[in-house]
């Protein structure tokens, strides 16, 4: 048994026949071959699969594809525009906010919504804001810096230094 759904993925509207039990993350990765969204756990704990559904960050391993019917989805592949990288992507690169890169797409998608709601978050607000996303490599210091940098860029403020404080 399948059901027809229509979604907009990174600006492209498409209709698909899907099994009702198909997870949204599998729809995106396997049916639509957008593999930037990753899977890191089976308990909705790690956040590697975080995407934006109608502007809200959700863990796509915990949503069925049919629940996304009629919705607008943005994944990491949809962040950059013809103008260039999204500020959050630039923030991660400039501040060494990633090592292996596996948690990075989910972490960035979460940060996009965080900054949308709170364009100038404190360090503590950032740390709590990304506490549903696990990173095993970076120790989070530079992820915090990356999000602060992106916030400044979005606000049009002077950009903070990206030099390492390794003195």
């Amino acid at each position: 048994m399948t059901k027809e759904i229509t979604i907009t993925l990174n600006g492209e509207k498409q209709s698909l026949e899907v099994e009702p039990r198909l997870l949204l993350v599998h729809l995106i990765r396997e049916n639509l071959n957008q593999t930037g969204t990753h899977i890191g756990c089976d308990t909705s704990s790690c956040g590697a699969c975080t995407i934006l559904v109608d502007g809200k960050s959700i863990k796509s391993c915990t949503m069925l594809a049919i629940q996304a019917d009629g919705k607008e989805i943005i994944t990491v592949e949809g962040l950059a525009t013809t103008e260039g990288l999204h500020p959050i992507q630039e923030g991660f690169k400039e501040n060494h906010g990633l090592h292996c890169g596996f948690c990075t797409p989910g972490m960035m998608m979460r940060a996009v919504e965080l900054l949308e709601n709170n364009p100038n978050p404190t360090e503590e607000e950032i740390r709590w804001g990304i506490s549903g996303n696990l990173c095993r490599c970076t120790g989070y210091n530079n992820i915090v810096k990356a999000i602060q940098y992106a916030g400044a860029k979005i606000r049009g403020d002077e950009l903070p230094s990206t030099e390492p404080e390794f003195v």
Partner: protein
Amino acid sequence: MIKCDTPKEIGGMGHSMKRKEDDRFIQGKGNYVDDIKLPGMLYMDIVRSPYAYAKIKKINTDAAMAIDGVVAVVDGKALEQYNLHWMPTLMSDTQMVLPTDTVMYQAQEVCAVIATSRYAARDGKEAVIVEYEPMKPLMDPYKALNDDAPLLRPDKEGKTDNHIWNWKAGDKEKTDKVFEEADVTVKEQMHIPRIHVASIETCGCVADYDKVNNHLTMYMTTQAPHAIRTVIALVAGHVGLTEEKIRVISPDIGGGFGGKVPVYPGYVIAIAVSFLVGKPVKWIEDRSENLQADSFARDYHITAEMAATKEGKILATRFKILADHGYTDASANPSKFPTGLYSIGTGSYDYGASYMEADAVYTNKPPGGVAYRCSFRVTEAVHAIERITDRLALEIGKDPAQLRMENFIKKEDFPWKSPTGWEYDSGDYHAGLQKAMDAVGYDELRKEQAEKRAKGELMGIGISTFTEIVGAGPSKDFDILGIKMFDSAEIRVHPTGKAIARFGTKSQGQGHETTYAQIIAQELGIPMEHIQVEEGDTDTAPYGLGTYASRSTPTAGAAAAVAARKLRDKAKKIAAYLLEVSEEDLEWEPGKFFVKGAPEKSKTIQELVFAAYTNHPQGMEAGFETTHYYDPPNLTFPSGAYICVVDIDKETGQIDVRRFVAIDDCGNIINPMIVQGQVHGGLTQGIAPAMYESLIYDDDGNILNGTFMDYLVPTAVESPSWETGHTVTPSPHHPIGAKGVGESPTVGAPPAIANAIVDAMSHLGVTHMEIPITPFKVWKTLKEKGAI
């Protein structure tokens, strides 16, 4: 400031160059193993044992085979027909690929379901019915040695008990004598718990066997692609899969930390199935399988002792270890020492006697013994020595920083011979600790602590001044299945002066594409952005032993520098020819050779490379490429001085890591941004076992925290804002004076945190706390000591 010999446009050593690999990762264009999709690919899922110890009575696959899309169910008996049901471990033990009669730990692979889709494979897995006859598992490593313990490995000929090996290092007689005569001796029993690397990407593979050409392409999450190729050839050579017919491709890896060194049964089953059906087979484990069945780390029970004079001169250490290896000895430990590098971990202190003895046993737990971001068991050693040093400070009433300062090996005493026979290459431990004390404001903190204690508040300051030991080889002490632990670099510079460099190592996030390019840029003067680094393909890269134990910079980084210097020598010959001078008349500055005293007469490296293809001297071999295999003469010895400050809430036992200052010395620095990033990450993987992580089993062998719901990987909230800095003591034997850094913080941080927490409660009579130190443990201890 870190010294740079090259301008930023060249981007050699010391520049915080942004990472070359990031562009693909931030745009979702990384290529991890689960992203690989091949035509006709089948999916594999694995049925696992709910019991820790049981006989398999029957495997009924009828319902599974009836499911649409299920192609086959493979069990141990099926693999036995091809003699593929067993495999060797790195420690010359044996491990089941799939069992034929008995399961030995919970979550062990029982059989594999192959299907045309991921969902059908999972449906098939749920439909397989296995009948077991459960037995009482052996979970306590101490009980494993009892006479009445069940014999867990009757498959091993002549084996009459559960004892795996006994190993000793150091001088027992001398050490015992020092202990007998010493003014002061201290002793603590400690357990370094079983933990899991839990890289955010789990393990997996796509095995693609091409029947027509008898060729296997194995895409897999491996930290050591070449070693895996050799292992596959050794395991499957008898069915015709010989080494030239195997290509191992390690695509982007989502974190390794040692967990992606071993060969897991899933890889072998996928290869066997692809071999039998002639189609690509994908196996990707889920998180719970990863936590429950893949290699653990640590699990050492240690009795640590230290002897000293009453003034606090350290005289000797003694360690007794019981190692719980689970059902087979599958440590990822490519050294000739059964305890890996435990014996090297006698610390940063100048004393002459040490003895250690270790016994390993079998239990009904998963096998393993991987590093979890450290160099083969050095974390266990460092924890014991840094904890027992603090214990001594407490015993004689001396400040732990002062005690360390008085006992450090002096920088002029390097190279320094350790009491267990190792030679530390270089270090300046006094400078590191002083810098950390200044940064944290140590004296003021001690004053604040005294004031708080007077008010009944709990605050602690913990120090760890550790020496790490990384960079395996040298080949006299390290090998994998006899293959010596050198590493390699191949540099090919194209006629237009742009290069590709290939390595036998494999980054899992360390940033090799950037740092190796910087080493070559430093030596050859070619801008790092013009140097493409490639790893992880055994068909193209020179043979290497892979990335773990912080060995990439000490080995492959050295190989890159030496290979680049060989090419620079060739460039010099060409320059002498083109400029019509002798080689002695030439001088080098990054990017060009010029004539001494006539700097206007010069040739850039790009011009010289072009000439190597277009106008090379008669008799000289054309082209501009070379390969170097580097066998390190010694290990490298990075060090660190870490200070942790904690505040403890008496009512709840809640521990707040207020500050954590880490001063690392990894020798010369290739990229400060990346070194600092590695330190941050290592520190979070240090606080993890100190306060949050451990794999817990009940007496029936059930794992109690086998998912991310209850295995507590620190989030950004638990992870403090790390304060980092460095000192530079170059390695005297490494071509660029570097030492490696990725793992130091994970090795050094846990005892700093434990020492801080114990320090907060030491006035109440607390001398030791077992990690992970949870609020409940603290609260219970405070209750026991009558503090609340």
